[in-house]
């Protein structure tokens, strides 16, 4: 995965962190700008729900700003931030499980009514059919992610989409590195089985794309 300017900025944000820890509002705002998309996407992939993802991201950054001065080791900022996000995700999931009502968005399903996703994607200039198939595959993969257990889903998203190392995932989830790897293995295995059930393998995808 190619590193964007944002990724580079995220990796070299030590001085920003130091200033933010000292209560610099500007530095805190920049940290939020740098990390908001990552935390939002982590939560979105976890819930497949924009509102819940926004809720989690906002709570995470409010908590970050309040508790940043307590962070001793700035090198652990990334795993610390994801720990907060994971805790809020679990809290929202508990609320969601206790509240069995179906949100209106699921009933209306606005995405089904709107035009396909590829229209809004960055690579619109490419082959539209290929783009459509990619969007379809992406949709299936996201649905498949939701079928994984909560524990496996957390690890798969953090490893595959957020690019955390197994050491960092273990730190975030407060588990051993081997447990994190094991959850990842079974998570991938689960995804593979679901895709195979839908006849999506490396051969069919290669042929289609």
């Amino acid at each position: 995965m190619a590193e964007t300017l944002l990724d580079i900025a995220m990796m070299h944000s030590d001085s920003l962190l130091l200033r933010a820890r000292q209560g610099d509002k500007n530095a805190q705002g920049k940290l939020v700008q740098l990390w908001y998309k990552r935390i939002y996407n982590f939560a979105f992939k976890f819930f497949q729900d924009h509102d819940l993802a926004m809720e989690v991201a906002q709570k995470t950054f409010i908590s970050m700003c309040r508790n940043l001065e307590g962070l001793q080791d700035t090198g652990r900022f990334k795993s610390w931030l994801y720990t907060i996000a994971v805790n809020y995700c679990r809290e929202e999931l508990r609320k969601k499980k206790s509240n069995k009502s179906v949100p209106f968005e699921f009933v209306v399903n606005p995405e089904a009514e709107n035009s396909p996703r590829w229209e809004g994607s960055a690579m619109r200039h490419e082959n539209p059919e290929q783009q459509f198939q990619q969007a379809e595959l992406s949709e299936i993969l996201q649905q498949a992610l939701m079928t994984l257990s909560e524990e496996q889903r957390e690890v798969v998203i953090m490893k595959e989409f957020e690019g955390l190392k197994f050491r960092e995932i273990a730190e975030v989830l407060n588990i051993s590195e081997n447990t994190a790897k094991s959850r990842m293995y079974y998570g991938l295995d689960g995804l593979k089985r679901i895709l195979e059930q839908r006849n999506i393998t490396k051969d069919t995808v290669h042929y289609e794309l």
Partner: protein
Amino acid sequence: MSYKPNEAAWMAYLYGEMEGEERERMELYLAENANARLELENMKALQHMLRTVEDKEVIAPPIVVDNHKTRSLWDFPYAKTIISIAASLLLIMVVGRLTSTTVSSDDSGIRISFGAKETIPPVTNTPMLTQAEVQEMINASLSDNNNTWQQSLAENRQKIDESIRKNLAVNTRNSERVDALVQQVASASKDQIAAYVASIQTENMRMMQDYMKLTSTEQKDYMENLLVDFSKYLQQQRNDDLRLLQTKITDVEQNSNLFKAETEQILTSLINNSGTNFQKAGIRN
């Protein structure tokens, strides 16, 4: 070779987080094992597919945080629990005070009571009666009881005797009445029964006659209707047969006319052909 990677090793190798000797062992294992290579390929293909899931674009909203950390007592951990317990105890004490609750324990058990304690006045013991006095009281009571009982027994016996006498008198009168009625019935029954039977017979005969008359008229009507319907049916049948015959005859006529016309046509064409043949023969000759 005994090395077989576990799930953790697979993941570490797949994501490039395996180094040194373990990595070499894994690579050797892959080199020697085609199935393992295929499994690795499948995992890489899945990774490739997962990369098609793009991030959603989102604009970070402004995060406003109040840094003045004036933590109230309520925000401290366990504060809520401790205050809740204290409040509950206070409430119990207030309620206990208002209702004058007392909890006491003695040899018979624990006792919880509400309100002021009721004092029971001591029972004053009357002086005891002697055995002779008690015996005398019992004897007096028994003799009173016996007198009352004998009096009521005599009254009851008298009442029963009177009632029996009355019943006997009524029964005698009733039996006399029944005997008179039986005699009356026995003397009057023969003539009355004969008259009754004769009237029933006449009535039955009349009814039978009426019925026969009625049924014979109905049967007659029915037979007439039946004959009329049958003759109509026969007439209809005959008409249909005649119509069919006429149609058939017309068909035969048409066919014969057609046949005649065809025969004429054939004959004409034959005559024409023979005429031309003769002419051709004449020309040749």
